[in-house]
């Protein structure tokens, strides 16, 4: 590490491009949204930055609050399911040998690398009315009727275009977000502590709850935040898998910018989502620091 004054010209040459790109194409656009969030529509295209809080107040109307609440509980439930589903996977990865570890990691990461839209589309194909699941069920139903069971007519399960579909889709997409930080945390764990707990007579479940989980708390917190935040801001999954009543914040923001043409309100909603995001990351940093202190004792 060197002081920048030691070689000023080299320093400027290195820092100019990344910093300028960041400021021009990230800070400036975000600042414009922020300015719009305190602006007012004047005519069809003009917006005056008046410093009003009207747009934020609008976000507390019942319809908008309902969308916010839906978004929050849907992403919270998604995160919880990801934790429950992902924890055993991360645990198995931690105690696998090197080769198995590499394979499991690859298997978890490969869908993650695959295009999000393709994955969502694949889910639609499986879950729609005449999709694989319903066809399979219809086949079973046909067989049962054939052997003489009074089954009635077959009703395909309404798997798509509801909150259930949104949650399945969000879990499908965000599972790797949970598994990777969990694995990273568990892998750093001192395995002898687990062995000690087992030797001293605690069962596997008790060891898990009283030794592994507290020690891996920072990793779990990281996983929760890293899963919850993108799920909360997800646009594509709720849009394609949900029905008209299953709006989430991102779709609401998109509507203000594309169809409703109320850019200041859209900007305010966008910044509410930003604030939630930043609060959660701050919380995570706090938990991590605290966790570090506990670990040092």
């Amino acid at each position, binding site marked *: 590490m060197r002081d*920048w004054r030691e070689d000023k010209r080299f320093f400027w040459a290195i820092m100019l491009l990344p910093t300028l790109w960041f400021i021009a194409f990230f800070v400036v656009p975000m600042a414009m949204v922020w300015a719009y969030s305190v602006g007012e529509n004047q005519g069809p295209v003009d917006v005056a930055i008046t410093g009003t809080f009207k747009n934020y107040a609008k976000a507390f109307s019942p319809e908008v609050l309902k969308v916010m609440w839906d978004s929050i509980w849907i992403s919270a439930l998604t995160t919880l399911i990801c934790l429950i589903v992902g924890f055993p996977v991360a645990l198995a990865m931690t105690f696998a040998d090197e080769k198995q570890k590499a394979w499991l990691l690859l298997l978890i990461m490969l869908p993650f690398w695959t295009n999000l839209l393709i994955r969502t589309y694949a889910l639609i194909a499986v879950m729609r009315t005449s999709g694989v699941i319903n066809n399979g069920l219809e086949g079973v139903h046909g067989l049962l009727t054939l052997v003489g069971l009074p089954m009635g007519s077959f009703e395909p399960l309404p798997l798509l275009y509801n909150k259930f579909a949104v949650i399945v889709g969000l879990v*499908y997409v965000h599972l790797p977000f949970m598994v990777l930080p969990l694995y990273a945390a568990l892998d750093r764990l001192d395995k002898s502590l687990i062995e000690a707990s087992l030797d001293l007579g605690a069962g596997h479940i008790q060891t898990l709850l009283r030794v592994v989980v507290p020690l891996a708390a920072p990793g779990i917190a990281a996983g929760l935040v890293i899963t919850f935040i993108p799920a909360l801001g997800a646009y594509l999954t709720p849009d*394609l898998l949900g029905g008209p009543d299953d709006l989430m*914040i991102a779709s609401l923001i998109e509507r203000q910018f594309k169809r409703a043409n109320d850019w200041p309100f859209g900007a305010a909603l966008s910044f509410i989502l930003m604030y939630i995001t930043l609060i959660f990351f701050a919380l995570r940093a706090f938990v991590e620091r605290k966790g570090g202190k506990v670990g040092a004792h």
Partner: protein
Amino acid sequence: MAKRAARAPLDYLGSPAIKGWLAGVFLFLYTPLIILILFSFNDSKANIVWKGFTFKWYVKAFENDQLREALFNSLLIAVVVTAISLVVGALMAFMFWRFRFPFKGALESGMNLPIVVPEICFGVAVLLFFAKIGFPTDLPYPLNLSQIIIAHVAFAFPFVAIVVRARLESFNPELEFAALDLGATPFQALKDVIIPHMRPGLIAGGLLAFTLSLDDFVITFFASGPGTVTFPVKVYSMVRFSVTPEVNAASTIIIVITILATVLALRAQKPVGKES
């Protein structure tokens, strides 16, 4: 009891319960994708029952001018974004690794923001930005893709920087001093000692930028001017209306490209990793 003693207490992978759980998780993750790939070869428009093997959906997808154009646009954008993000990201990593300067901490957290900001927020910001600065929307092809490229680079290069920075942390500074002692100029030391050490990070970062760009729908959706279509945007409009085997075929092509890129990147990383 005897069964339990057969495996080590921490060998969770050996436990039947965990094995079943893993099988379930991977079934959940892979069944939709495998079915999607299978049905791209199915000789039936309905996409429901297996009617026999065919390549006709691939032919159709390639004959669909819009789809082909969208696919080509996406790949072109991804390649350009990867190249620019690699340069900008590597510079950013090097800057924070090498130098101490005022407001470093603030700048560093700021420049990591694009990673955590929800896509939708950055998407609308980009839309607003290009609309208000009066960015020309009537540029000739391929320059009309530049809005998308600029936006993609803005969120992709901090990812590249993180990967490259992680790699730089393992650099032994004595190697650079040795090079300088042995008469290398600072530039030569950079080019022949530091950059070769960065290479695995650059490869991994490049792959990350490539997939991020190829994958992105939301930001492209907001950044693209009229008449520029990328693959995700095109598929999005097709999926809204119906599920057709043509989309399956095009998706399979993208999946194969992604897997190839991943395998190549893993291969490229290995020998270098072993050397150091």
